């Protein structure tokens, strides 16, 4: 177990090391690099799908970061850069998909579950209260009618 944890820490450190190495050629413009990382953190790497474009070490992700860097240098806005990527790779690259018919359920799902849950909860409570009230009435009746033993 300890070995595994050590390995994971080593991996994490390794990842940081390479990220620092890759950023070096662009140290002349830290502001741009900052902007790139901020934007890329919300974009999905299309090769290794569970990594963001900012952290992925896949060659294609590196190429795409370079592409984004160049677009930013040309003065494109973040929205234009995102548009550049979505026309090529679809909404799939976005970790925050836009609100449109296919994603209505995705966005409203959690709220819907909450509402359904609240309704079920409310109905259950009301039913229990009614039953409890009915039991009490029965008890009262029963109390008067219980034959003496």
């Amino acid at each position, binding site marked *: 177990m300890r070995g595994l944890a050590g390995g994971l820490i080593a991996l994490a450190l390794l990842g940081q090391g390479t990220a620092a190495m890759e950023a070096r050629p662009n140290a002349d413009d830290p502001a741009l690099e900052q902007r790139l990382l901020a934007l890329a953190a919300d974009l999905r790497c*299309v*090769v290794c*799908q569970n990594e963001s474009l900012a952290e992925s070490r896949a*060659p*294609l992700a590196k*190429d*795409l970061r370079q*592409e984004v860097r160049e677009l930013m240098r040309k003065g494109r806005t973040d929205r234009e850069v995102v548009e550049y990527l*979505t*026309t*090529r*790779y*679809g909404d*799939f690259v976005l970790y925050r998909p836009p609100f449109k018919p296919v994603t209505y359920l995705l966005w409203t799902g959690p709220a819907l579950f909450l509402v359904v849950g609240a309704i079920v909860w409310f109905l259950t409570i009301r039913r229990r209260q009614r039953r409890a009230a009915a039991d009490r009435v029965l008890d009262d009746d029963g109390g008067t009618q219980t034959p003496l033993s």
Partner: protein
Amino acid sequence: MKRWLPFAVFAVLLGFLFVGLWLDPREVPSPFIGKPAPAFSLPVLERPGQTFSPDQARGRPWLLNVWAPWCRTCRKEHPFLMQLAASGVRLYGLNWQDQAREAADLLAEIGNPYVLNAVDHDGRAGIDWGVTGVPETFLIDADGIIRAKHSGPLSERVWNRKFAPLLQGKGS
């Protein structure tokens, strides 16, 4: 009746999960279906000095197969590509992120199913086509519109399911 409700919910959930087992997360819907093929102009592997752009292939449906000699899966689909080429399908290659020499050597060795190969050395054209990895294959119709895309190796099964119906519809 009430007692069955949790079971019903569970069964529906199970159904979703079961279907999910057979879904391929790599099968990402391409935003290019129904859109014009992105333009590029790249050197031709087989004919030094010449360039190829998708416009030149217009007139009849054609395939663009994105591949690279360092890609093992591409070797796996190669026999089927040879078969396609033999049956008269117009197959163009996009040689992705590669040194052209290696591709030429490899094709000389195992056979060349392509009408020609465009050499995309820096991978820019691949990015413009939304390529995420090799191999990938696009079907472009006579008017230069992308009709289908497959990520992963082509096979008879994939061909019959995804590409052949479209070609028959168009009467290639």
